[in-house]
C-alpha cells in the first residue's frame, strides 16, 4: 500500500507545465450543479460552464439564471438534493 503521505511534493509551476498531460474538463457531481460549456453550434441553453453550489431552497434555485438542478429536472418523488433518483414513477 502506498502511504498517502508519500504523495509527491508540489512541483513548481514550470515543472507542472512540463510534466502534466491530463487536464480536468468538468465534473458532474452530486455536490454541485454543473452546466457544461459547449461549442456555439449546440442548441442554446447549454452553453455555459459553471460550478454552482447547490441551492438550499427553491428560491435560491430560481434565482440562479440558467441553473437547473438535475435532481429536480423530472420529478421522481424523492428529490432531496443528495439524491438524483432517475426512477421516474408511474402514476
Amino acid at each position, binding site marked *: *500500500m*502506498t502511504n498517502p503521505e*508519500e*504523495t*509527491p511534493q508540489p*512541483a513548481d509551476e514550470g*515543472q*507542472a*507545465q*512540463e*510534466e*502534466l*498531460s*491530463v*487536464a*480536468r*474538463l*468538468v*465534473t*458532474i*457531481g*452530486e455536490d454541485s450543479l*454543473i452546466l*457544461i*460549456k*459547449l*461549442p456555439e453550434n*449546440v*442548441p442554446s*441553453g*447549454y452553453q455555459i*460552464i459553471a460550478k454552482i453550489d447547490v441551492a*438550499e*431552497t*427553491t428560491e435560491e434555485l430560481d434565482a440562479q439564471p440558467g441553473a*437547473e438542478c*438535475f435532481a*429536480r*429536472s*423530472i*420529478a*421522481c*418523488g*424523492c*428529490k*432531496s*438534493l*443528495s*439524491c*438524483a*433518483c*432517475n*426512477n*421516474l*414513477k*408511474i*402514476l
Partner: protein
Amino acid sequence: MQSSYSTQILCHSQYNYFVDRPEGMVGYNARTGTFAIFSKETGRILQDKGAIESLSAIDAKALLDMGFLHEGNEINLVVSKFEDLKKQQDTLSLTLLPTLSCNFSCDYCFQNEYRSHQFMSPDIQAATLDFIQKLILDGRRKVTCTWFGGEPLLAKKIILDMAQKINQLIYSENAQLIGSDIITNGILLNAVTAKELSEVGIKTAQISIDSLIFKTKTKRGLVDIDGNPSIILRNIMEARDFIKIRIRINVSVNNTNEIDEITRVLDSYGLTGTYGFGQVNDLEEESDYIVNSEGYRTPNSHSNGCSSCDSSVGEEKSLCLSRAAYAKVEQDKFLARPDSLQFVISKLEPKVHPCSATSGYLFVVDPAGYISRCWHSAGVPSESMGNVLDLMNSVEESDVAKQWRSFSPFAYPACRNCSVLPLCMGGCSHPRVFMEANKPPCEAIKQQVQFCVDTVGTTLEITPEQHSTISIKT
C-alpha cells in the same frame, strides 16, 4: 519520464470510459463524474495498453484525484459514500398520498392491485402533521414534500389545507422547505388550481402522459381525436403561468410507435426541455411475484411459463418493454436529440443512493395513515413501518425500517461488479427488499453509458488553456 511517485499499487478504475478526439483522448469516470482530457499516450495507459508505472508522478496524482486510477479496493469508495449518507439524517423527504383513488384507470398502473378509494380523514391528516413535526424535531430540518396519489387533485382541499399547515409547521420549527411538488395526470390542473397550489408553495407539477390521442379515463393523450389539444394539454398550457410543469412520457409497447408524434406535438407547443421518458415496468412480474386479493405480495406459485394464469401479472407484462428495449427507445427517440443534452449530462451524474428510500430520508404516508419507505409500498400495510395513528414505537425501530436500513446493493454480485454502479447504485431496491428479486433491476443507463459519454465527450468545449496543458505529449 520515469515516475518519482510510487505508482506500483495504482490500478485502473473499473468505471472509466473513453472518447477519442482530435485534441487527445477524453475520459469520463463514473465514480467521480469527472471528464478530463489526456494526451494520447496517457489515454493508452488508462485503457490498459501501457504501464501505469510509466506515468509521471504529477499525472498519476491528478488521475488518482479524478478517479481514473485508484488505490486499494475501489468498491469501498462507493460503499463508504453510501453508508456515510445514511448517517446524515438531516433531510426529510415526504410523499403524502391524500387518496389512492383515481379518475383514470390506466391498464399499466402499478397501484391497480391495491387501489382503494379512501381519502385521508381529518384524524389521519392531524396525526400526519404530528408525525411530521416529530421528524423535524428529531433533526430533519431540510424538508421536501411531494403530493402523490392515486390522483391527488381529487383531494385538492386536503392538499391545500395540509400544505398550508406544513408550511406553518416548518416555519415555526425554524426548518427549511427545500421544495414542494405534485404528481398528477393533469386532468384537474386548470389555471385556478395551479394558482392555488402555487400559493401554498407547490412549485412543480409532474404530469404523466402515455399516448397521442386522449381517451376518457384510459389514455392520457395530448390531442383529441379531432386533433385539438386535449384537456391535459390545455391544462398544461394554462398551468404553466403559475407552476413549473414537468412532463413524463410513460413508454410501453402500446406507444413506442407514437413517440415521435408525441414529442413533435409537445415541441410544437413550446414544451421542449420540459419532458422526459419513463419506463412502464412491472416489478412483480420481474420478480415472479403476484399481489393476492388481500394486497400482499407473494411468490407466484403458477409461474411455469403460464403468466396468463394470473391476470394481474399477465396483463401488465404484455405492456412492458424489456429494460434493454426501453433503453434503446429512450436513447434513439430522446437522448439522441441535440436539445436533450441536459438529460444526457444528468444521466452521468454519480449517485450516492438509488433513491431516498435507501438513504432513510423518505417517508410515504398513504390515505390510511400507513407510513412506508417507498412509493410502491403505499396502500400495502404489510410493507409499512407503522401508522400515524399508532406511534407508540418509533417507526425507525420497526422490522420494515430495519429491512430498508440493512439493505445494500453491494450484496449483489451483479451490481457490485457492474461498471455503471455509481450511476444507478443498484436501481430500484423495492423488489429486492420485499420480493427477493434475483434479477438486477438495471436502469437504462447500463445500455446507454457509452452513448452518453460519447455525446458529452465529443461536445464538450476544450479551451486553449486546457488543450495546451496536454499538447506536450500528444
